[in-house]
């Protein structure tokens, strides 16, 4: 089972290594980790996707909470959150296949961001399923390289996770 955690942390050097180090030394698996600064330049947000059972995700949350640099953690319910990932995919393309790849790209509402004689580079964003479905379709032409950001997620509706917001899960 996959869980998505939205984690607010202090924005200073060393925090990412503390968080990543915690995962490795306690034997937790990170599926993906995406970091970026928030509207408050002192605070960054990490979106962490963890693979495991209830015990694992509870331990991840509690152990992360122990880090002094971690300000707030919330486990996101997939039904009540919007999740996105960005991928850049370089696909082999020649004069015969080029138009087919362009058609598939349009159907997926993805963008071609670079073209060469032998390749097309496509930018696609969406949830994991959409990106993997797209990759399956273009695999037949030959995927040369893939770069993915990892999932970022935000809650639907007017709920927010900021340093001042109250989280019901807080103990």
């Amino acid at each position, binding site marked *: 089972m996959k869980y998505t955690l939205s984690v607010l942390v202090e924005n200073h050097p*060393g925090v990412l*290594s503390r968080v990543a180090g915690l995962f490795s030394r306690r034997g937790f698996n990170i599926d993906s980790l995406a970091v970026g600064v928030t509207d408050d330049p002192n605070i960054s947000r990490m979106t962490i996707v963890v693979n495991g059972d209830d015990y694992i995700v509870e331990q991840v949350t509690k152990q992360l909470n122990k880090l*002094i640099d*971690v300000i707030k953690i919330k486990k996101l319910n997939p039904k009540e959150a919007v999740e996105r990932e960005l991928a850049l995919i370089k696909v082999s393309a020649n004069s015969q296949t080029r138009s087919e790849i362009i058609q598939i790209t349009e159907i997926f509402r993805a963008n071609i961001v670079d073209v060469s004689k032998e390749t097309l580079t496509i930018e696609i964003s969406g949830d994991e399923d959409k990106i993997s479905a797209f990759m399956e379709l273009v695999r037949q032409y030959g995927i040369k390289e893939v770069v993915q950001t990892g999932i970022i997620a935000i809650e639907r509706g007017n709920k927010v996770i900021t340093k001042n917001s109250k989280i019901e899960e807080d103990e």
Partner: protein
Amino acid sequence: MGKITVAQAMVKALQEEGVEYIFGIPGAAIYPFYDALYNSDIKHILVRNEQAAVHEASGYARSKDKVGVCVATSGPGATNLITGIATAYMDSVPIVAITGQVMSSLIGRDVFQEVDITGATAPFCKHNFLVKDPKKIVEIIKKAFYIASTGRKGPVLIDIPFDIQQQEIEYPQSISIDIKGYKPTIKGHPLQIKKAIDLIETAKKPLICAGGGVISSNASDNLKKLIEKHKIPLISTLMGIGSIPTDHPFYLGMIGSHGQKKANIALREAELLIVVGARLGDRALGDTKITEKMKIIHIDIDPAEIGKNVGTDVPIVGDAKYILGEILNRITEKDLCWAQEIIDENTNKSVSNIDYLRPFEVLKEISNIYKGEYIITTDVGQHQIWAAHNTLIKKPRTFISSGGLGTMGYGVPAAIGAKFANPDEEVIVITGDGSFQMLMQELATIKREMIPIKIVLFNNSRLGMVYEIQKKRCSSRFIATCLDGNPDFELLAKAYSLEYLKLDNKDKLSEAISIMKNSKKPFLLEVVTKPDEPTIT
């Protein structure tokens, strides 16, 4: 007020935190700080290996309920602290460790004596700081003391480049500490406390397991009153020894693989276990099936400990002293002593047919002669378990041992720290010949400072605990557990100006211990024991 150097500001901030002693060794990357110490009231204790500096700070902190401070230089000085920091982390001991670092402009270039000590210690210290902005130094020191001494206590490291120590700053007038991500919960949730009280009131066989958290939160008085009011028997982990007097009729002993029979029987029979400030690690609770059938109330200031090793019915996050106080005030008085049979069981070891000297007799005799008026520190090994089972511990903070990490070499330096913290108390180290030799160069610190620490050295010329494992599980295929080449401990004592006595038979047991007690000097009592002496007697 004019400008002062960062090093001077560090010393001033440490004085404001009430620091009396600093344990450490200087070096090139920390010399400005040492220079600033020259004119201060803080006493510096020069150790012989940085690892000892942390253990001394640990003995000081644990025996006195204050933050212990240690200092080392960059590179190897800093890495020598690592074992001590990990030891303090596992046992939740409040320590601030200060390390010098190479010049800030050279960080990351692998220059002489450079090491990434904040990276290295991150997994096993509560928090650490690399000082980059000289103006932040006082705030960082205040934060470090606050983090080390609140919530679940632990070690905090401050790494400071030596060029920054030399820069000049205005000493800040007032600093308030507000750390966004660090707000320890002290008061337990009232609803959870109520649920706990209801469970205790209705339980027929409740049992309390006290851990180190009882001692570090000074909850012993409340714990004692609670068990007496409701007649609840008590077991402890190694770290919980001393949470109530070990001769208290309701105290059944330490649990676990090296625990006492009574305690383990009670644990199997209980229907409600109230875990207070303990994490129930693998040594304490090897078989988690034991707790499957019982209800569990778990009180801990660290929410991550609750549910980590055992499932919990009523989790209560908060300070043990506060929560036990709440329970005590609202619980009814009862006369239910379900464990009376276990309490009454006579587990006194028979000594009548044995003509050789046995360790438990030595420890019982020390307890009798001193009447529990001492601070005991131990090393790690068979002697540690002998001490845990057989010494009379009357007060909290008087049994000091490396529980979580099991660090050999802890005993002597921890005793030095405890002696500085409590100069009027007798401090006795219980050690073995294996552990003792890991940091025995600290005898030089004892000699230099002329502190009358008493060392009881059980010598079986073996790494006893592993030797025992090899005997039982490896069909006596002994490898690397015989300590041939041990020094002549009498000559060693002489070299470091310690008084010395050797005890190898029962005849002079009381006399030897009395001589040790009456001595006003550092003392080494070498007790020769059989290699086959079991850990659990």
